[in-house]
């Protein structure tokens, strides 16, 4: 049996009075790609934000590598190797591409190691190396996504949370991003992938959860989800 990296136990999260998560339980095992599917407003981002500690859950527990991280500050969670690439990229516009990447390795003291990791990111995303001294705001949408992922990789994650990496990208770029996610996974990074694009996500994933208005309404291995009538109707189109 492979080790469980992340477990959510009955997590409930509120925004003021809005009950965004109504008891989420899920788990991600070592080496897996797990996908979290759902329509707009289902609570996918809130789930990731709760895991990263950006919002606090009112009930339930988040366990990462056997340790309870429910009440731990976001910057300490990152130090343990749990990295999120947030929805909408959130790169630092007004700073150079290189500076964006360096900030990804903020927790690192060793400059030589920082250069090694940057070299690895440039190996995965060569476009970033060519434009390293440019302002990040000059990148196209797809390149910004690559920068956001590269920045996340600078921390050397054990678990990578990706929030809608395909959002707003042309189909060939979506394929490119998915190819990179697979490559990262083959390099040993466990991945929790949030997507609205169920088709590509299920092709990549080992296991999937379907979220509706703050609840998990379905879960299964990706292959059976792809065959499921309800999924086909609601998320895969005809």
């Amino acid at each position, binding site marked *: 049996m492979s080790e469980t990296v992340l477990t959510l136990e009955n997590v409930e999260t509120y925004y003021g009075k809005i009950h965004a998560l109504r008891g989420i339980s899920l788990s991600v095992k070592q080496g897996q790609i797990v996908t979290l599917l759902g329509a707009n407003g289902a609570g996918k981002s809130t789930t990731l934000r709760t895991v990263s500690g950006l919002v606090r859950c009112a009930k339930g527990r988040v366990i990462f590598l056997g340790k309870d991280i429910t009440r731990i500050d976001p910057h300490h969670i990152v130090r343990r190797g749990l990295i999120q690439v*947030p929805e909408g990229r959130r790169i630092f*516009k007004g700073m150079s591409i290189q500076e964006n990447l360096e900030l990804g390795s903020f927790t690192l003291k060793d400059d030589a190691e920082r250069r090694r990791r940057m070299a690895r990111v440039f190996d995965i995303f060569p476009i970033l190396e060519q434009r390293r001294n440019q302002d990040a705001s000059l990148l196209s949408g797809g390149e910004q996504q690559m920068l956001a992922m590269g920045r*996340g990789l600078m921390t050397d994650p054990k678990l990578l949370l990706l929030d809608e990496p395909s959002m707003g990208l042309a189909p060939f770029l979506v394929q490119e991003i998915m190819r990179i996610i697979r490559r990262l996974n083959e390099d040993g990074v466990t991945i929790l992938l949030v997507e609205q694009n169920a088709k590509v996500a299920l092709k990549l994933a080992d296991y999937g959860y379907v979220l509706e208005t703050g609840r998990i309404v379905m879960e299964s291995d990706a292959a059976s989800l792809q065959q499921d009538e309800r999924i086909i109707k609601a998320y895969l189109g005809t």
Partner: protein
Amino acid sequence: MSTLDILLQQLANGLILGSFYSLVALGYTMVYGIIMLLNFAHGDIYMVGAFLGLAILTTIGSVLGFGWGGILAAMCCSMIITGLLGVLIQRVAYVPMLSAPRLSILITALAVSMVLYNGAMAITDGEYRAFTVDLGFEGIEMGAVFITYTQVALVLATAVLMVTLYLFVHRTMWGKAMRAIAIDKDACRLMGINVNAVIALTFFVGSALAAAAGVMAGVYYGSIHFFMGFVIGLKAFTSAVIGGIGSIPGAMLGGLVLGLLEAFGTQIPFIGSEWKDVFAFAILILLLVFRPTGILGKTEIERM
């Protein structure tokens, strides 16, 4: 004096004045950049820095003397203590207000300003204090223009502080984090950056720079008083707006521009030096009307 001499003399005066404005404006702009707070107490921090500097100089002067050595030591000590005071104020007064409506934290800043101002008034009995130093009156003579070495040293010290700050925010990880949290705090948290610690550091740096300016102003004018922070607070705010609030190079530039404009403004016929504050604030109003983003202020760039 020839016209050229007058211009040269005003250039020197403007640079000194501008140095003080710039140093104080930096704290204004950095704090605004990261938490959108117009820190009204910042001028008073400058005043406290000056008094701390004087107290330290008086204490260590018997050992280190009242020359450059003693002044430099007193300035550094005052910068550190005032910086820590800035952090303390931030922790006690501002952190609890960060999630409250913007107006609440603004009112808190006014309250902090009053505490410092009235506290200093009580401690000093509301009197001027002589800032006694022993620097001599030598200088550089250029025709009718005379610039003391003290003036040169103050401008150089300001330049050194600014270059240091610039290198800090562009070359070190903590400096880069400071710029990044001005852009996106949650994204910084996801990078493992302790945002509260970076905010505290920003207050430390801003307050320390204000203290440096306060000590320099004491050295330059020869006396300090509890209300010295009020007008310079407004002027530094004006400088920050001129340069583009939130922008570090903008604050440096804005302070110098304002200092020079004021100095030269006194030479316009019928506008004597008593009009220089009117002049400064008229510039602020004109700027807010015609270029509210300031000289180096950014316009938002968004690309999907």
